[in-house]
């Protein structure tokens, strides 16, 4: 008998329904290959980001000018950049920046988007205004909007986060709004309204929790998108200011010397691809897990 069956039999004897449900959920998550693969990749990358300061051989700003543009060697496992800084260290610290920004953008975009979507779904006039603004923002291609915002606010790390959050909010708001609109028509909402529940209570306690599942899936994809957009911005020189290390920044430095120093392009590139891959897998897996009926609609870039 399988592990799941054995466990279930054990719990049955204890007659505890909640434990049963939790166990089922656990097995569903572990059995979902997408979530596991994505989760493993992501955990590894987060680990790198977290332990970077302790483990890396050199500091990310430490210049050894005599060692400029050296190929990967025993001393510098991934080579050095055009200022003689160790690439391994810069990439590890860059993980903190790039992944950190991605996570923050995903979190805040989802939070604010949730609020906006909920408000729009419940109050008609607000809906019109908010959705027009969202349409307008979504009409402007993401990278362009981000460039314009960062140019306006100034090249600082927090401004990059703010700009990217603004770029991604409309998408989240639309998704939350459409889910909320469907839930609003359900009979049980009508029932509790008849019982006298206040508007805010309904929104917060009943509608919001049901919008969480598509939101979580979307968060994963936004995280991936944010990493890509931040890298694109820094690559254009309009993102994280030097000398702060970010994967996009390293690519920016590497662009000028691309014919002499392939390692400056290849290694950050591989890490970006890995993070996005892990997040996409995780997002796909979560979507399968949470609701196989969610329509497939991802923004491409």
């Amino acid at each position, binding site marked *: 008998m399988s592990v799941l069956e054995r466990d279930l039999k054990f719990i049955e004897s204890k007659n505890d329904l909640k434990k049963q449900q939790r166990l089922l959920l656990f097995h569903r998550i572990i059995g979902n290959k997408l979530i596991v693969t994505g989760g493993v990749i992501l955990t590894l990358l987060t680990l790198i980001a977290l332990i970077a300061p302790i483990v890396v051989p050199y500091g990310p700003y430490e210049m050894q000018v005599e060692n400029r543009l050296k190929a990967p060697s025993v001393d510098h496992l991934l080579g050095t950049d055009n200022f003689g800084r160790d690439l391994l260290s810069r990439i590890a610290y860059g993980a903190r920046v790039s992944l950190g920004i991605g996570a923050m953008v995903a979190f805040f975009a989802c939070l604010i988007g949730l609020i906006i979507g909920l408000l729009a779904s419940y109050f008609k006039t607000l809906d019109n205004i908010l959705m*027009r*603004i969202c*349409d*307008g*923002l979504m*009409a*402007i*291609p*993401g*990278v*362009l*909007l981000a*460039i*314009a*915002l960062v*140019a*306006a*606010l*100034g090249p600082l790390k927090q401004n990059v986060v703010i700009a990217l959050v603004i770029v991604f909010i409309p998408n989240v708001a639309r998704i939350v709004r459409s889910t909320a609109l469907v839930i609003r028509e359900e009979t049980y909402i009508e029932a509790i309204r008849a019982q006298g529940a206040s508007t805010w209570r309904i929104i917060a306690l009943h509608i919001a929790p049901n919008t969480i599942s598509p939101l979580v899936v979307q968060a994963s994809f936004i995280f*991936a998108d944010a990493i*890509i957009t931040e*890298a*694109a911005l820094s*690559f*254009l020189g*309009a993102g994280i200011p030097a000398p702060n290390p970010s994967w996009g920044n390293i*690519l920016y430095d590497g*662009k000028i010397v*691309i*014919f002499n120093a*392939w390692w400056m*392009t*290849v290694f950050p*590139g591989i890490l*970006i*691809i890995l993070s*996005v*891959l892990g997040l*996409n897998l995780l997002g796909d897996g979560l979507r399968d897990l949470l609701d196989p009926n969610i329509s*497939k609609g*991802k*923004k*491409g*870039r």
Partner: protein
Amino acid sequence: MKMYLVNRLFSLLPVLFVVSVVIFSIIHLTPGDPAAVLLGEEATEQQIKELRMKMGLDLPIIEQYFNWIKGAVQGDFGVSYFMKMPVLEAITSHLGPTISVAILAGIISLVFSLPLGILAAMHRGTGTDQTIMGISLLGMCVPSFLLGLFLVLLVGVQLQWLPVAGYRPLSEGIWEHLKYLILPSISLGAMHTALISRMSRSSLLETLNTNYIKTARAKGVTEKLIIYRHALRNAFLPILTVIGQTFGSLVAGAVVTETIFNIPGIGQLIINSVERRDYAVIQGVVLFVTFIYVIINLIVDLLYGVVDPRVRLERQ
């Protein structure tokens, strides 16, 4: 159908209005004075003030906005003081290369993605299917500029098959023109190829599961005929959605790709303008690109009506 078209065109207006307000406010939030930048460090207070008056920068913001919009509707986006030409001229002179890259990228992605998606759906579950889906998954994870950089390294440095920088207009011969566009188009189109092939596969699979297809099979129609004559047409609508959604962003993606391959298009235009704080050009370019984006979405929307008679009837 005509009413629908008119309605759709009218719905564009609020969107464009919001976009114009957004981009105008963003640009004018920017610290830094273009007049001062233009005149350089030697300029006196008086000179800067005069140039500001000439550029209309001393008017209240609302008035500046209305002047801009009034002109924009007539096709006058203002003048770029940095490039010494009207903004519209700057945009049109840079538009050619960008459009060429975008169109070539679109063609390449369609040519590859549709057959691959159909193949994957036809051989569902086999190694072919899994390979194609695996590659397309990877394709979705590699941002276009990264692919561009990798291609530059691989093709330009190691193999030396194609040039990696620069641009030759059509006037110099079609092969010369294309040679410089191939790499940028491939890097721009890869992600879209991946998305479209996934979408065609899933859409085709869904269609193949419907009752009428099962009936055709039961009647003895060959699989090939089923796919080409029945399934494909009905599966096409979601595929068209994805194509439409991604095509507009091809133009936007060109922004980054152009810097890698040194193509003098809209992307380079906007990046240079951001550096120089050329307000007029930045506003004009973003509004223009957004306008194209919106028009493309509208065209795709109208194409639904052409492709699917049910949609056409619904609209009447």
